[in-house]
C-alpha cells in the first residue's frame, strides 16, 4: 500500500471536509516516517522541507526554548514553512516513538493549489496562530 | 594559501651579532615594514628603562626582523654599571618599588595616555588635506613609537611580582605555573573588558528596554551599533563613550595590519550583549582555589605566600593595561590614518586597494599621499600577498651562536638573585622559552590544515550544544561528523582529540581554509571552555594564550 492509510488522515482537522475519494488521492502522496523518542523532528529557525501528520505517539512543541504545547495522533505540524518557504517557527521533539506521515513541498503545494477546501482550512489555522501570537 | 616553493628560497641570517630567538608568541606572523621600522628603537628604549628601574643585569632587549619574522636578543648591562644595579635590585625588593610604578601608571601615565589617544582620535582624517594628512600620519607614528616604549617600560612591574610568586610557590609545592596563574583571575578586569565606560553602558541598558530590544535584534551588527549610538539621552551617550574607548583598539596582535574593533561590529555587539547579560562569578571560584593551594604550602611559608600572592594580584592587571592603554590603541589610530591615506591613493588609481598602503614603509606612505610618488600598485600588492602567505614554520627558532649560560644565581647577592629568578620565570612564561613551562600550555597533534588563528575555545560534545558556538570560536571536540558542517562558516579553527589527516575534520578544515589540528588525544580534557587558544595548523600545535 502506497502512502498513508486513509484513516490516519481522516482525523486531521485540515482534511475534515474531504470525501473518501479525495482523501485517498491525498493519502497516496504521504510517506511514513518514524522518529525515535527524544529526537528533534523539526528545528526552530531551520528551513522547512516537509509537513507531517502524527499517527501514533507524542511530541512536544517548543517556541523560543519554552514548552508551548503537546501533539498527538491526528495532529499535524510543519505547514507554515512549506507555505512561505520560511524558517520553522518551533522546535518539535518526539517524546515517545513518533509515527508520522510526511509530505514534502513538491507534493504539498500542488495539493493545496488543487483543493480549495484544504486551502481555506490552512488559512483558518494561520488566523488562529496569528491571534494566539498577538495575545501571548 | 602558502606557497611551498617560496619557503625554500628564504635564507635566514642573524640580523646582527649575538644570539637571536624567534618570538612567535607576540609576532606569530610576518610584520609590516612600518612595524619593522618603528618597533626596534622603541622596544630597546622601553626595555632599557625597566631594566634600569629594577636594577636588572640587562642593558636592554633588542628586536629585529628577518623576512618579517620577529626575533629578540638581550644586550647585557655594561660591567661598570653592575654595582649600581645590585644596589637598585636590593632597593626594589625591599621597598616593593613596583608599587611606585603602579601608582605612577594609575595617577599619571594612564590618564595622560588616554588623553593623547583621544586627541588624535578626535581628528577626522577624512577631513584633512593631503599635506595635513602627512603631518597627521607623522603625529600618529611618533605617538605609536612612544606608546610601544611605554608598554615595555611597565613590563617588569607586571612581571616581577608574578614571577616572584611563581618562583617561591614553585619551590614550596609542585603546583604547575598555569594553575598558579589561575589565582590571578578577577584581578584583571581590563582583560575582560571592564572600564567605567562599560559600567555606565550596562547601567544605561538596564534602564532602557528599547535599547535592550535593539541589542537583541537580528539586524546587521553595523546597523545595530549605529542605531544604539543614535539613541537619545543617556543610552546613546553611554554607547558612544564605550565605543570611543574601545573602538580603535586592535582586536588581536600589535601591527597596523590587524583590524580594530570598529571594523568588526559583530565582535562589538557581542561584547555589549555579554556585558549587559551579566558577569561571571569568578570571585567565588578563585577563593576556593587559593585556599586549596595555600593548603599545599608548608606551614612556615604561608604568611609569605599571602604576601607574595597579594603583590602579584595587585600588579597583575598591568599585564594587559600597559598594552591596551598604550600601543594597542595607538596602533589602531595609526591604522585608521593609513587606511584614509590608502583610500585617497587608491582613488587616484595609484594602488589597487586602500589596505595595500599598510605594506608601504612610513616614508613611502607619506610620499604616496603627498604627490603619488613611490612604489607601484603591483609592488605593494605583491608585498601584501607575500606577507600574508609566508609560511611561519620557515623561520628558525634561533639565529646566531648561543650565549654563555647566565651566572649561577647562588653567587649573586640575594636580592639580585631573587629578582633574576622572578624575571626569568615570568619572562620565560611570557615568551615561552622555558620548554617545560611551555609544554604545560602547548598541545600537539597532527597539522591538518595550515594557518594560525587565535580565539576562544568552545568545547562541544555534539549537535545538542551547537547553539553555543559564536562566530570566531575555535571548535574543540572529540571528533566531527557531517552534522558539524553547519558550524563551519562560524569557526575560526578546528581542534579534535582523535582523527587523522584524512578524517572528516581534517578534510573540512582544509576545504574551508581554516587552521586545523587533529589527533591531539587530550584537547577536550586539557582545554577549558572559553579560554583563548592559538591554533597553529602548520606546526600542529594548540597553545593556551594567557
Amino acid at each position, binding site marked *: *500500500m*502506497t*502512502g498513508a492509510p486513509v484513516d490516519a488522515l481522516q482525523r486531521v482537522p485540515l482534511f475534515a471536509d474531504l470525501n473518501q475519494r479525495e482523501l485517498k488521492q491525498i493519502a*497516496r502522496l*504521504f*510517506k*511514513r*516516517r518514524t522518529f525515535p523518542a527524544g529526537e528533534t523532528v*523539526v*528545528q526552530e529557525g*531551520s*528551513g*522547512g*522541507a*516537509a509537513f507531517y501528520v502524527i499517527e501514533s505517539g507524542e511530541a512536544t512543541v517548543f517556541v523560543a526554548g519554552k514548552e508551548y504545547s503537546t501533539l498527538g495522533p491526528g495532529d499535524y505540524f510543519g505547514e507554515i514553512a512549506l507555505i512561505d518557504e520560511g524558517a*520553522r517557527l518551533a522546535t518539535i521533539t518526539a517524546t515517545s516513538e513518533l509515527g508520522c506521515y*510526511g509530505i*514534502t513541498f*513538491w507534493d504539498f503545494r500542488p495539493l493545496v493549489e488543487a483543493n480549495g477546501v484544504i486551502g481555506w482550512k490552512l488559512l483558518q489555522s494561520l488566523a488562529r496562530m496569528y491571534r494566539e501570537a498577538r495575545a501571548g | *594559501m*602558502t*606557497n*611551498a616553493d617560496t619557503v625554500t628560497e628564504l635564507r635566514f641570517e642573524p640580523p646582527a651579532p649575538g644570539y637571536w630567538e624567534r618570538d612567535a608568541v607576540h609576532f606569530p606572523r610576518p610584520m609590516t615594514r612600518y612595524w619593522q621600522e618603528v618597533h626596534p628603537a622603541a622596544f630597546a628604549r622601553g626595555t632599557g628603562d625597566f631594566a634600569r628601574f629594577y636594577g636588572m643585569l640587562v642593558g636592554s632587549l633588542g628586536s629585529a626582523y628577518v623576512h618579517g619574522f620577529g626575533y629578540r636578543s638581550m644586550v647585557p648591562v655594561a660591567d661598570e654599571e653592575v654595582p649600581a644595579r645590585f644596589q637598585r635590585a636590593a632597593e626594589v625588593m625591599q621597598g616593593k618599588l613596583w608599587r611606585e610604578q603602579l601608582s605612577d601608571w594609575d595617577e599619571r601615565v594612564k590618564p595622560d595616555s588616554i588623553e593623547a589617544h583621544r586627541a588624535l582620535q578626535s581628528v577626522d582624517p577624512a577631513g584633512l588635506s593631503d599635506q595635513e594628512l602627512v603631518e597627521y600620519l607623522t603625529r600618529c607614528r611618533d605617538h605609536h613609537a612612544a606608546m610601544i616604549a611605554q608598554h615595555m617600560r611597565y613590563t617588569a612591574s607586571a612581571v616581577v611580582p608574578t614571577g616572584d610568586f611563581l618562583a617561591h610557590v614553585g619551590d614550596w609545592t609542585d603546583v604547575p605555573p598555569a594553575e598558579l596563574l589561575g589565582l590571578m583571575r578577577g584581578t584583571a578586569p581590563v582583560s575582560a573588558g571592564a572600564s567605567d565606560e562599560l559600567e555606565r553602558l550596562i547601567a544605561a541598558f538596564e534602564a532602557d528596554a528599547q535599547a535592550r530590544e535593539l541589542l537583541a535584534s537580528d539586524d546587521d551588527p553595523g546597523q545595530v551599533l549605529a542605531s544604539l549610538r543614535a539613541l537619545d539621552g543617556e543610552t546613546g551617550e553611554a554607547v558612544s563613550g564605550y565605543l570611543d574607548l574601545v573602538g580603535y583598539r586592535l582586536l588581536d596582535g600589535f601591527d597596523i595590519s590587524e583590524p580594530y574593533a570598529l571594523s568588526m561590529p559583530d565582535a562589538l555587539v557581542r561584547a555589549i550583549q555579554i556585558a549587559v547579560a551579566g558577569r561571571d562569578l569568578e570571585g567565588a571560584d578563585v577563593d576556593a582555589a587559593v585556599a586549596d593551594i595555600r593548603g599545599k604550602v608548608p606551614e612556615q611559608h604561608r604568611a609569605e605566600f599571602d604576601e607574595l600572592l597579594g603583590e602579584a594580584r595587585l600588579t597583575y592587571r598591568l599585564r594587559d593595561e600597559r598594552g591596551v592603554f598604550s600601543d594597542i590603541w595607538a596602533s589602531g589610530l595609526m591604522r585608521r590614518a593609513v587606511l584614509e591615506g590608502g583610500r585617497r591613493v587608491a582613488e587616484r588609481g595609484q594602488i589597487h586597494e586602500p589596505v595595500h598602503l599598510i605594506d608601504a614603509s612610513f616614508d613611502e606612505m607619506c610620499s604616496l599621499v603627498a604627490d603619488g610618488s613611490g612604489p607601484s600598485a603591483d609592488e605593494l600588492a605583491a608585498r601584501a600577498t607575500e606577507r600574508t602567505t609566508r609560511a611561519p614554520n620557515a623561520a628558525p627558532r634561533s639565529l646566531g651562536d648561543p650565549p654563555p649560560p647566565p651566572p649561577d644565581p647562588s653567587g649573586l647577592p640575594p636580592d639580585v638573585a631573587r629578582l633574576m629568578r622572578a624575571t626569568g620565570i615570568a619572562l620565560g612564561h611570557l615568551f615561552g622559552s622555558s620548554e617545560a613551562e611551555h609544554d604545560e600550555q602547548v598541545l600537539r597533534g*597532527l*597539522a*591538518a*590544515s*595550515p594557518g594560525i588563528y587565535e580565539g576562544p575555545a568552545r568545547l562541544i560534545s555534539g549537535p545538542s550544544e551547537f547553539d553555543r558556538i559564536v562566530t570566531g570560536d575555535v571548535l574543540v571536540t572529540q*571528533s*566531527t*561528523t*557531517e*552534522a558539524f*558542517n*553547519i558550524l563551519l562558516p562560524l569557526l575560526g579553527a578546528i581542534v*579534535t582529540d*582523535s*582523527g*587523522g*589527516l*584524512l*578524517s*572528516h*575534520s*581534517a*578534510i*573540512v578544515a*582544509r*576545504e574551508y581554509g581554516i587552521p586545523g589540528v*587533529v*589527533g591531539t*588525544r587530550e584537547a577536550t580534557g586539557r582545554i577549558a571552555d572559553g579560554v583563548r587558544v592559538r591554533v597553529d595548523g602548520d606546526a600542529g600545535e594548540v597553545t593556551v594564550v594567557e
Partner: protein
Amino acid sequence: MKGTVPLVKAHETALYGSKAVGLGQAMRDGLPVPPGVALSGAIVEAVAAGNDRAIKQVAKTARPLGGPLAVRSSAVDEDGADASFAGQHLTLLNVPSSEQLGAALSEIWWSANSDSAISYRQRVGLFTRPSVGVVVQALLDPESAGVMFTRNPINGADERMIEASWGLGEAVVAGQVIPDSYRIHRSGEVLQRTPGFKKIAIRTLPEGGTFEQEVQPELVEQLCLDDGQLAALNGLADRCEQIYGPARDIEWAFADGKLHLLQCRAVTRSGS
C-alpha cells in the same frame, strides 16, 4: 518495474546516482569492488512511499548478496566533488538481510529530503526535487580499513597518504581514532610508518548495526598494515589513477586477506 540492476551494470547517473555509477565503472575496469546492486531514485522513492511491489522487487534483487548488507546513498544530481558537504551521504552499515531493506531505504529517502538537506541544496542553487539512488553491497568484516589519497592532500607531494585502523573504515573517516599514518612514494618505497592510537574498532552486530569494540591493549599502537598490504595499496592507487586520473580519494578495506575498493572519488582540494 525498472530500477534495480547489478552494480556492474549501473551506467546512467541520472537513474542511479554518481556513487553507483562510479563503483560500477570501477568494477567494469577490473578493480576489486565488493559485489552489489544499484537501486534507482525512482524505486527508492517508491519503497519509501510503501509500494509493496517495489519493496518486493528490491528484496529479490538484493537476496543473492546474502547478508549482512552495507546500504549507501547515491545522490543523483550532485557531482561527487561537492558532495562531501551535502551531509546526505548516509551510510547504513549492517542491514542484516534483504528483507529489512525497506526501512533502510525509507531512512535514506527522508535523509535526502530532510529540512537541512533541502536547505543546503537551495543555498547551493539546487531548487529541484532531490532524487537519491542507493547502492547495496555485501558488508565486509575487515581486519583493517581506511582511507588513501593518491597524492598528499596537505602539501601536494607526489606520494600516497594512507590512514588505517582496525575494523570498519568508518573509524578513520569519522575520525574516531588516531589512525596509523603511512606515506608511500609511487615507486613503492615506504617513506613513513607512524602507528596511531587505535583504541576502538567498529565491528558489526549479528542483529544489525555496528558497535565500538575496545581494541586489545597490545594492538592499540601496533601498525595494522604490513609491507605486503602497503604494496597492494600502492598498486591500487596506481590503477585508480591510470583509469580516473590523478588525486583520488580512496576508501579501502582488507577482508579475508584481500584488498577491496569501497570508494574512489576525486579529491576536492589539495590543501592549497
